[in-house]
């Protein structure tokens, strides 16, 4: 008997008892649905993070103070405290590296912004004159900082749209003076609307010249120096260049960490992949439970159809044909569950995307095929024991079975 005929026999049998087939495969439906939804969410978030990183500028390199790599061997004896990353380091990077075309010291901080009795706590960041273009930020009213503003420690501020809306409402903020942590700063520019990213309001911030920020927070070193590689395709050359210049300034010690945007993205990706894997493993448990359900019902079905098996054997079916008949039936039941689960999952994802366009969910083809493949495999595995017991029946006994 050909596989196609066995398949048709299985379809006929399943059609003869649709409700039972549905209940049998319900576990697989739920399992596949869970796998699809969880992976779609994981994939969507990963894609979203990748896109966000890309929008931040992919050739950006971050230098942070302190060595963070863990390496084997004897630990270096600590000689004094690690060097800070100072404005002099920044200067050195500007003048002595040839593979970079933008350097900006960054001071991370928060400030209480006050204007005429209104107060708003926002991120207050010290930045260099290249920061805006490196981070794809655009000033669409007023201007950004110049080299002069930075070197003269001018108390200027460029504000985001949220700060503008909350503190100034309809008033034009340009030229106005606002207080940050009790020091006065004049508004020279307003940033273009950026929206939310990873839950942060990118418009809820105030940018200060990096030097003024160091003064404001009473710091003598940057939290980060951001460097842009001239050659997008060769960030590594820029990393080596930056490392060499800073090392020379730091008594030949690499007491800082240079990381490219790609490295950070790779780290995030590997974390997300692990998270997705864990979710997938949890969802797979329901697939296994679904498989056990199929095995159980198939065993009952073999017992119920003992006489049918006897008749088929009497008229010429070999053990193998009987084995294949039940195995294929099990695979068809499980695959139907897989298809239904996939359809439900696609439906839910579609509706979710329509209802909440911001939510990062996406159904990638590989997970659809994997889910179908898995459900078929569940069918094979859970069909083996029932099919073998059907094939092992003695035809004489089977025909006599009541």
């Amino acid at each position: 008997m050909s596989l196609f005929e066995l398949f048709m026999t299985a379809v006929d049998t399943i059609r003869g008892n649709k409700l039972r087939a549905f209940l049998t495969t319900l576990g697989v439906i739920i399992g596949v649905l869970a796998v699809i939804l969880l992976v779609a969410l994981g994939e969507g978030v990963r894609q979203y993070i990748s896109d966000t990183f890309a929008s931040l500028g992919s050739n950006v390199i971050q230098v942070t103070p302190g060595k963070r790599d863990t390496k084997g061997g004897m630990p270096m004896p600590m000689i004094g405290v690690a060097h800070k990353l100072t404005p002099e380091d920044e200067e050195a990077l500007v003048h002595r590296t040839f593979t970079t075309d933008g350097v900006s010291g960054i001071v991370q901080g928060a400030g209480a912004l006050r204007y005429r009795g209104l107060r708003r706590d926002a991120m207050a960041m010290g930045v260099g004159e290249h920061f805006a273009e490196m981070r794809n930020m655009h000033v669409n009213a007023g201007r950004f900082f110049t080299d002069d503003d930075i070197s003269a420690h001018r108390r200027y501020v460029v504000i985001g749209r949220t700060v503008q809306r909350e503190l100034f409402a309809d008033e034009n903020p340009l030229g106005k003076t606002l207080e940050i942590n009790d020091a006065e700063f004049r508004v020279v520019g307003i940033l273009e609307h950026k929206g939310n990213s990873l839950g942060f309001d990118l418009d809820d911030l105030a940018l200060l010249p990096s030097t003024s920020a160091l003064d404001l927070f009473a710091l003598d070193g940057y939290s980060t120096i951001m460097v842009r590689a001239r050659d997008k395709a060769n960030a590594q050359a820029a990393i080596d260049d930056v490392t060499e210049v800073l090392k020379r300034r730091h008594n030949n010690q690499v007491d800082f960490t240079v990381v490219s945007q790609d490295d950070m993205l790779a780290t995030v990706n590997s974390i997300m992949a692990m998270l997705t894997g864990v979710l997938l493993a949890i969802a797979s448990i329901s697939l296994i439970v679904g498989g056990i359900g199929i095995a159980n019902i198939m065993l009952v079905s073999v017992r119920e159809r003992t006489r049918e098996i006897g008749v088929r054997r009497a008229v010429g079916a070999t053990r193998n044909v009987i084995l294949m008949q039940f195995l294929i039936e099990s695979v068809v039941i499980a695959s139907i569950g897989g298809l239904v689960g996939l359809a439900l999952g696609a439906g839910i994802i579609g509706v979710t995307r329509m209802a909440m366009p911001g939510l990062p969910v996406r159904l990638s083809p590989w997970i659809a095929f994997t889910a179908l493949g898995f459900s078929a495999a569940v069918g094979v595995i859970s069909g083996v024991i029932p099919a073998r017991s059907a094939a092992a029946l003695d035809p004489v006994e089977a025909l006599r079975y009541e």
Partner: protein
Amino acid sequence: MTTAVIDVRKMERDFRMGGTTVRALRDVSLCVDPGEYVAIIGPSGSGKTTLMNLIGCLDTPTSGEYFLDGEEVSLLDDDSLSHVRNEKIGFVFQTFNLLARTTALDNVALPLAYANVSRSERRAAAKRALERVQLAERQDHKPEQLSGGQRQRVAIARALVNDPKLLLADEPTGALDQHTGGEIIGLFEQLNREGVTIVLVTHDPGIAKRARRQVTIVDGAILSDEASR
């Protein structure tokens, strides 16, 4: 000289039940030529069903030889026996044993599906077999829509569909009333006149008498083997 359809020589069949061995058949020899109509008769527990299972290649003997249509089948493995059953034997059972939810036509065509006959040829052959049992107009009915006698006729058509060397019937009237049973026996007689070799197992002397030869089996051995008047 024609080849005997059934040629059983000194066949024995033992069953082990717990610690004891039951000798279900002892030294049975039997020869059936093409075109014969033989009734195997005996009380229940006499071994007639065991003999039928052996003749039908559903079981293998403990010792002895069995030539079916000239082919030694007592030593074949399970797969080969399946093929022999498929090609040379047609079974009719007491309880019909049709597949529920399957039409008469598809029930009749079932043996041919295992013989790898194409779907259209299968349907044509099944139609012809149903015509032989005068049920052509019921081909699309399912077993539950048919009477007992009609179901048994579908079962007979299924037994005939592969043009078997041997039609083997086990108490074919056991589940039918007297009148319908008589009709089924009439159908067997008609098929035998058309040349079908029939072996029928029964415990009913009235039915056995209508066969052309009766083999009586008691306690696993053949007691008598005689032709009808």
